[in-house]
């Protein structure tokens, strides 16, 4: 028996946004294709184009604080890469500029820029997937695709165990701060403060997982009568899957061919 999820939610029929009519698999294939495209060519202009496409997708979908945090962290990584490669890349030959007598080399900076662009492409496209697809939508889609609910749950559990661990860590650290045992004023103190909470953190998270497992079984999780939820209706799913998979195969083939021929 098929059950309409919209009806279950009691959600009134509202016009869906463009990114809500794209199925999760298409979005995952899109990340794969963008990543492969980025690694297919060392052309910086192509990288900039890919970043532009991914940024526009994000801007026209929705942005949230998590995306900004991920972007902020990746920009920090890229700047670090630029400094390290600009100074110490093994093929450095041409000095591009000097700051306080320290020389930055062109080859290292180009190499780091290329790496940074690829990181950005992955982060931006993954961000698009994350902000436009909910865990439950993925779960419903995978279940509808024929996976058993148990398998789906195991796959999806990763999506909530990590945030749950983060929440637990914040709670433990806050409790320590309140007691004055965890000052966390400097970066070293912050890093040091993580170590002593690791064991209670893992135990607490395991305990929560155990409680959830008990509860799910009590709630008839493995009942053979379970109905498959109908996920949202998506547009052109089959055609998009075939096209994007074809493109991925072509890009992998292209990469192998260029490697073999030394291009």
């Amino acid at each position, binding site marked *: *028996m*098929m*059950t*309409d*999820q919209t*009806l*279950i*939610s*009691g*959600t009134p029929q509202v016009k869906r946004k463009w990114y809500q009519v794209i199925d999760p698999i298409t979005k995952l294939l899109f990340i794969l294709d963008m990543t492969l495209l980025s690694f297919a060519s060392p052309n910086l202009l192509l990288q900039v184009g890919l970043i532009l496409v991914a940024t526009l997708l994000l801007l026209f979908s929705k942005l949230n604080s998590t995306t900004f945090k991920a972007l902020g962290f990746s920009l920090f990584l890229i700047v670090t890469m630029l400094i390290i490669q600009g100074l110490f890349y093994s093929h450095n030959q041409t000095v591009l500029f000097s700051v306080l007598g320290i020389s930055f080399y062109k080859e290292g900076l180009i190499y780091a820029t290329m790496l940074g662009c690829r990181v950005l492409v992955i982060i931006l496209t993954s961000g698009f997937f994350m902000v436009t697809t*909910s*865990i*439950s*939508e993925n*779960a419903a889609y995978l279940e509808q695709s024929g996976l058993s609910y148990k398998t789906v*749950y195991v796959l*999806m*559990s990763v999506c*909530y165990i990590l945030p749950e661990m983060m929440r637990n860590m914040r709670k433990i650290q806050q409790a320590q701060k309140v007691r004055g045992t965890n000052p966390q004023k400097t970066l070293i103190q912050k890093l040091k403060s993580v170590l002593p909470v690791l064991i209670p953190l893992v135990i607490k998270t395991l305990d*929560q997982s155990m*409680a*959830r*497992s*008990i*509860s*799910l*079984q*009590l*709630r*008839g*999780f493995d*009942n*053979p*009568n*379970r*109905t498959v*939820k109908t996920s949202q209706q998506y547009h052109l799913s089959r055609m998009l899957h075939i096209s994007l998979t074809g493109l991925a195969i072509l890009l992998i083939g292209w990469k192998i061919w260029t490697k073999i021929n030394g291009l």
Partner: protein
Amino acid sequence: MDEDKRIVVDNLTSRYPGTTQPQLRGINAEVQAGQVVGIIGNSHSGKSTLCRVLAGVISKIVSAEVEGQWRLFGRRVDDWPAYNAMTGVVLQNPAGQLSGLSDTVADEIAFDLINQGLAENLIQKRIEKVAAQMGLSAQLHLHPESLSGGQIQRLAIATAIATHPTVLILDDPTSEMDPLGRRQFFHWLAGVKDTTVLIVTSEIDDLCEIADSVWVMHDGQLVSKGTPGDVFNHLATDWQIPAPTITQLAQKMNWRMADGQYPVNAAELKEVRYAHN
């Protein structure tokens, strides 16, 4: 009496692995269909373990040594799918009961109903009904994690009652509710029909208003059971359980009912007051 119309607990003893003392010791009890039974006692008295056994968590999901027998309306835990289908359970940590895969409160309530394979129109009706009963109608489209502790507790109860269980097992279901939420919950519980309810709670005043029977747990033993009046008029001091506020007031005023007992709820207090006037 016909065993199919009772919950029967027969000499039940249970011990978790790695512990020397059993958490439950020789529990014997019976509950008639449709009754509300309040289970009270101090920490580590065995209340939650008893709930876990009756819910089938022990020994169907969590391993523990169990001796003795128990049957819910003639059904044993060995027949797990049927046993599980007839129980609705709310455990101590309500947040841990959420599936984690629902975007809305409505989806969370639907989880149990989808698991039971109900038709979609019935699912929608049940969601609306239980949400109204638990005061969650306005929250149906919210994400479960955005709810307060009390609201999550009400959601956990809503998921338990959505499947229309024959037996409802509630382990401290109001611990995180505000006074109004708690009062509304007990008001709802008073009107529950056709469901046998076993509720662990420390809200003794509220319990005395609605319970048909009260069980007192102490050191893993069921040391007293009976009507709220019988139990609270014969509390032993070593159980360290306070009498209801009404009983304490009546004791101070020496207001006794015709049978010599002190009142335990508002109706009995009124009766005593009329008698004294």
